[in-house]
């Protein structure tokens, strides 16, 4: 018996069929094996961020956390509510205020981050780097800015992935499990989590910006540039003659952020979204002085670079 065209079209859009299609796409999105070169590149970049973060504590380690330092454990406990029993902010830096022990911890922390960056004992060093970074954050929570949450989720997701299979000392010494270029499901999961979380951050930035008038009336870039004790460079002389320029840059920031959220996913528009985001973070870094935050967002953007491009870059490096 022949089926009518109506029967065929009804079957294609049945809830069961749609559900099956959704499941198949979900599985492809999250669980299709991926070349571990993505997570290897991210390991190197995120590791550099972690090393930078820890090294910048060197001049002020005792100033903040030492005996007689600005942030005593009692002060931090009061600020975080830990003195009322709801802190959830463990830190090995709470174990001591002795300068000698602090410096030993600090040196070991930087060493761990360096080993993670170069891909030696990658899995173990990844977890340790995350714990170390969290320790510094929890020891001085009021010292954190927009950079630290980005660094934390990048480190967290990389813990899931075989970051040491390529571009690493583990790979060179043959310490990593599995063939260096064998596609990995965990690499896919880690990369997707970074991508989704990063886009959520863009969404957070845009929705919070649009809750304020300055981003609607086009003046926000001026108020960033006018912070004379924060900016990287004084752009007020360049911006002051033209309110239109201020407005254009402000609106461009918002549009690029919204555009990134939507356009980074399709392969056709992804390169343009990534290129525009480079300009975005350059502008934000210069006007606000939040250079480390801009760098972290650019590193996160690297999760969207195509496998073919990364392989070409890796081949050049070899």
């Amino acid at each position, binding site marked *: 018996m022949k089926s009518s065209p109506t029967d065929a079209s009804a079957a294609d859009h049945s809830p069961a069929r749609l559900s099956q299609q959704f499941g198949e*796409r979900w599985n*492809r999105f*999250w669980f*299709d*094996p*991926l070349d571990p070169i993505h997570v290897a590149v991210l390991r190197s970049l995120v590791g550099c961020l972690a090393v*930078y*973060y820890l090294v*910048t*504590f060197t*001049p002020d380690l005792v100033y*903040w956390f030492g005996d007689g330092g*600005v*942030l*005593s454990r009692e002060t931090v406990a*009061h600020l975080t509510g830990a003195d009322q029993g*709801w802190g*959830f902010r463990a830190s090995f830096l709470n174990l001591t205020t002795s300068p000698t022990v602090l410096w030993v911890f600090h040196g070991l922390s930087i060493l761990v981050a360096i080993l993670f960056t170069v891909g030696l004992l990658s899995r173990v060093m990844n977890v340790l780097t995350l714990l170390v970074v*969290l320790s510094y954050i929890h020891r*001085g*929570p009021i010292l*954190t*800015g*927009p950079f*630290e*949450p980005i660094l*934390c989720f990048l480190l967290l997701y990389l813990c899931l992935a075989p970051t040491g299979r390529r571009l690493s000392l583990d790979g060179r010494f043959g310490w990593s499990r599995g063939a260096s270029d064998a*596609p*990995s*499901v965990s690499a896919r*999961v880690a990369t997707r*989590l970074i991508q989704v979380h990063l886009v*959520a951050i863009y969404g*957070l*930035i845009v929705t919070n*910006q649009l809750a*304020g008038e*300055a981003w609607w009336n086009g*003046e*926000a870039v*001026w*108020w*960033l540039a006018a*912070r*004379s*004790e*924060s*900016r990287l460079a004084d752009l*007020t002389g360049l911006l*002051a003659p033209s309110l239109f320029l201020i407005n254009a840059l402000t609106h461009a920031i918002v549009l690029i952020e919204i555009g990134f959220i939507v356009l980074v996913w399709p*392969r056709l528009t*992804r390169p343009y979204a990534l290129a525009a985001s480079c300009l975005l973070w350059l502008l934000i870094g210069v006007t*606000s*002085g939040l250079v480390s935050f801009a760098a972290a967002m650019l590193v996160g953007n690297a*999760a969207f*670079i*195509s*496998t*073919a491009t990364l*392989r070409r870059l890796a081949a050049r490096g070899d």
Partner: protein
Amino acid sequence: MAVRAEERSDSSEPGRGAKGSAEGLSPQWRQFGSLAIVLHLLLVFVALSANYAPSALQQRLLDVFAVYTRALNLDPNFTPYHLTHATEVDVDHQVQVLLENGDASNPADWVSVPNVHEELTISEPYRRRQRFAKVLSLFADDDATAGHLARGMASQFVHQRDLQPTRVRARAHLLQSWTDVRAGSVQQRDPFDPSYYDVRYDARILIGPAGSIDVLKTATAGEVARPDASEP
């Protein structure tokens, strides 16, 4: 190598799976992984959405899942990702300390932390000192919290620098408007003119014989009741 590269999955082509992939997941593991991913992302989205003006429900969810979100620093916790809303909060802050025998009316006698003229403004150490100053300014009306912070700053001067602070204050560096810079007076065009600074917190430091440090908050402008005109 080129042929094998083309056969592999590309992150830009999520729909195509790798041929002969080395790893695969059983349906059970995919179900477990999917559940974990959904739960994790749900918590992440709750934490991120609560960054600005959270509702009572969002705050309650954050408290319930704090052991996960705060421990892993997934909760931005009021970090200003909006960069600026041009409010009185979105300005630079600094802490200033007046040492023993210093003259409060002489700007040179105040030690500024951070010091924009002596430090690299984009460096993380500078930024951390700025954030400390901002928190002290924001919590100026919370005597317990501000007292902790002021005491900490004084303690660093006493125990690490071997100096005797007598006052600690937090200042906000107000912003120049576009019209100020474009067509203002000489003072208005100078971003470091004293008129652009506003004291948000001021306290006296009392150091006991045993080295104990107490903080006595001083009244700021507008907090002192105006005298009645009928009073002598």
